[in-house]
């Protein structure tokens, strides 16, 4: 048989490790300097989030009312003329203190935790739920697909910010009243321990899977008629195997890219909710809360808003550049 008589060269080609889609993409990503730097910034932020308690010079909630609105001398140029005379110059706070005399640097470092937790949890939830929902819908097709997509289209018409605001108001009021027992009590206890973050995760996670489900379905539709899926079906692979071994790995690329580009949106949503008093519970520091507190003092102590604002912008900037880099890496047609 012809198969038995392979030349040495053919053997070599067959035994060479295949360059997978992922490996190719990784190689392209490594060549993109801006994306790499952004990736490094994201890693650094994760590091800060984990070790915030070791890095922060002060506790985030300790108030030093004698040093309220303190400004370090090297940042005095930020002050407006009319407020310069009243400013308390205090160099023990590296980036100054807020209106209650809490260290801005420490609060900003701790704030990384909230923003990054939201980014991680919201994207995991929406990625998992969205991928599974969309894949099933696209793979099964027919009536089921129609029904599932009708639901998604319907939910898509919903104004989601409104839903999140309502959910958060509900959760917060519930947390104030307290629950008698059972699941709700466990949930509320955990939420209190996490400074109000758990319910925020749920509210944001609940509403963000829809776009992901649409994307996943579109991807699956384009892949499920391809030859390799046909081949898998021909050798008798089960539906579960086809979905998890063949389809999901192939559709994952664009989904991860979309998710990375959606992360700034999650971070904004958290910041917006905290800004409106519907996010994490004070004194847990969140950049959104810090910005809303800073707005009150904007005309006299702009530093109090500029510090968290800079942190928020740098974080979203890093995720955006990284997402762009990932997109170019996974879809080389876009980069050219």
């Amino acid at each position, binding site marked *: 048989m012809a198969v038995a008589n392979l030349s040495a060269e053919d053997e070599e080609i067959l035994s060479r490790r295949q360059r997978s889609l992922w490996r190719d993409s990784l190689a392209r990503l490594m060549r993109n300097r801006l994306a790499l730097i952004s990736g490094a910034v994201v890693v650094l932020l994760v590091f800060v989030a984990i070790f915030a308690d070791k890095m922060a010079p002060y506790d985030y909630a300790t108030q030093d009312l004698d040093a309220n609105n303190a400004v370090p001398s090297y940042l005095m140029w930020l002050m407006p003329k009319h407020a310069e005379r009243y400013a308390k110059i205090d160099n023990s706070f590296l980036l100054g203190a807020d209106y209650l005399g809490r260290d801005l640097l420490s609060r900003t470092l701790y704030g990384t935790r909230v923003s990054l937790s939201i980014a991680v949890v919201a994207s995991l939830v929406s990625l998992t739920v969205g991928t599974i929902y969309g894949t099933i819908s696209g793979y099964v097709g027919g009536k089921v697909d129609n029904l599932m997509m009708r639901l998604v289209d319907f939910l898509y018409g*919903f104004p989601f910010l409104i839903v999140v605001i309502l959910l958060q*108001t509900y959760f917060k009021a519930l947390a104030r009243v307290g629950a008698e027992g059972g699941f709700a009590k466990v949930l509320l206890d955990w939420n209190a321990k996490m400074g109000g973050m758990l319910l925020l995760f749920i509210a944001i996670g609940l509403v963000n899977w829809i776009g992901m489900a649409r994307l996943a379905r579109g991807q699956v539709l384009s892949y499920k008629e391809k030859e390799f899926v046909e081949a898998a079906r021909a050798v008798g692979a089960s539906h579960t195997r086809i979905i998890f071994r063949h389809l999901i790995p192939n559709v994952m690329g664009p989904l991860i890219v979309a998710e990375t580009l959606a992360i700034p949106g999650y971070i904004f949503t958290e910041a917006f909710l905290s800004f409106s008093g519907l996010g994490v519970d004070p004194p847990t520091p969140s950049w959104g809360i810090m910005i809303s507190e800073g707005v009150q003092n904007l005309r006299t102590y702009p530093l109090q808003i500029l510090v968290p604002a800079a942190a928020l912008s740098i974080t979203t900037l890093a995720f*955006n550049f990284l997402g762009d880099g990932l997109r170019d890496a996974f879809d080389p047609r876009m980069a050219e």
Partner: protein
Amino acid sequence: MGRYIIRRVFGFIPVLFAVALFTFILVRVIPGGPFDYAGEKALPPQVVANIEAKYHLDWPVTWQFVSYLFGDDVVEFLSAGKYQQPADGGSKGLIRGDFGPSLRYRGQSVTDIIKGTFPISFQLGLLAMIIGLSIGVPAGIIAALKQNSWLDYTATFIAVLGVSVPSMVLGPVLIWLFAVKLGWLPVATWGAKPPFILGLFPRDILSWKFWSHAIMPAIAMGTGMSASIARLTRASLLQVIREDYIRTARAKGLSERTVIAIHALKNSMIPVVTIMGPLFAAVVTGSLIIEQIFGINGMGRHFVQSVGNRDYPLLMGVTLVYTFLLLIANLMVDLTYAWLDPRIRYD
């Protein structure tokens, strides 16, 4: 086409109904009521009960919902007189254009509040969208036509920067720079008051007073929008100018200007139009924040506050107006789509 539009508009009804039902129930499940406090002081239960009875909050929720949608007379008719229509006629119901009374702003109807505040949010959003389109589209085109030049890199970099800096940050920075540090522009409030032309547009649109107030919030809102439009325009135009029909157009000897302006641009606008829907939603979100930061008395402020105040009718009214606008925006996106791409046919 006409039939398509009519069908879509009828399709709004179930969505609006579902949003109304969901909001109506959820906001009543939230613990705490609108009349628990008068200022800082808690009101005695008897007083609360009396006020609640005035607004029919003592009715079962189902009847309250029927009253909200169809009016008190329908409730009286359907419940066979068990729940009486008040002497002044009571609520006429949503289907007859009555959003009900505000529970927090006593003596004002929700319709009045929306009429007074919506035009301000509308003007702000419109200016932001004009800024977004008039900067975003040209910047994207230039970046695509001069691909990989320094112009392209600068534009792309600024665009990512613009996407990454939220209006929550940009607004205060603009205030700090132009109002506090330089003192060129006023810090807060909006420069136009009712009555508005056609109920929407400011009367003194040519005055410096209007623009000096409008310019910063509009830029704070429009920057992010123009950045994402620029990115999308660039990516889309780059794809289109590699198509065969562009090569054909060039081969026919058409000038580069004609090729780009007539053949490439229209097609490259299709993805841009698709994100106008989500962008419109972003305008709504943006207005909630910007109106708080700049102290603008628009509809966005009522949105967050009415939830906190448990001002049920006001929240319902604002929510339904937003939902309706969102649906209209999505419909307009689909129609523009069909105009740009003749292969898409709606019938």
